[in-house]
């Protein structure tokens, strides 16, 4: 089974990519692929409890939580990105693991593909 890391780096409001990144990752369960999702830079804001683009009339991001729970999808977030955007109150429904940049560097070789979205 191939392991694929989907790296999302754009904001959860103002871009479609946090939603599309999760949606694409969930699509991998159709085949012999194990997806994980990593949020870096502005995308780390996705995990804040108060982040919900639906408040602005945009597509909900919280809806992905249902599928994270259903598939038990691994979600990672870079610690330095959380600090950069002062994200301290994480929504536990994302089940995110916080990793430092150095820890992420060490982790990357385990993936067959790394896909930036």
């Amino acid at each position: 089974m191939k392991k694929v890391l989907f790296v999302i780096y754009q904001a959860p409001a103002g871009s479609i990519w946090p939603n599309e990144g999760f949606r694409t990752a969930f699509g991998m369960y159709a085949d012999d692929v194990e997806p994980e999702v990593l949020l870096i830079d502005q995308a780390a804001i996705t995990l804040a409890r108060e982040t919900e683009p639906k408040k602005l009339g945009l597509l909900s991001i919280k809806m992905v939580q249902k599928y994270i729970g259903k598939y038990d999808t691994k979600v990672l977030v870079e610690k330095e990105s959380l600090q950069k955007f002062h994200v301290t109150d994480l929504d536990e429904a994302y089940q995110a693991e916080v990793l430092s940049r150095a820890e992420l560097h060490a982790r990357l070789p385990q993936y067959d593909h790394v896909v930036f979205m």
Partner: protein
Amino acid sequence: MEKLKITIQVMAPPYSYQDLDTALNIAEAGLDKGHDVGIFLFADSILSTFSRVKPIRMDRNIPECMKTMIAEKGLRVDICGICMDYRGVSPQEVIKGAKPSGLPELAALMATSDRFINLMA
């Protein structure tokens, strides 16, 4: 030389970014060397298959380039069907040979490709 299965995923819109041009150049080089090459179009990149695209005369016509490469070199082109629906593009409006597809097909391509290239502006 070992024949490789190569998949290139593109996300960025044609004519705003040049990822599609990069993808086609890589695809052509791979096909010319005898590899099995496919492009998976996601999000706004699907507009590159719209048959009524009409750039100015001196510019390249990306849908036409893709159509020629499909017909003459065997390029495979998959288009995310939900992305097409979101942008109001029907299967009748895309170039001949490009195939409406989806995430299960993308997952299969990731599982079976020897090389997977992801272009994101």
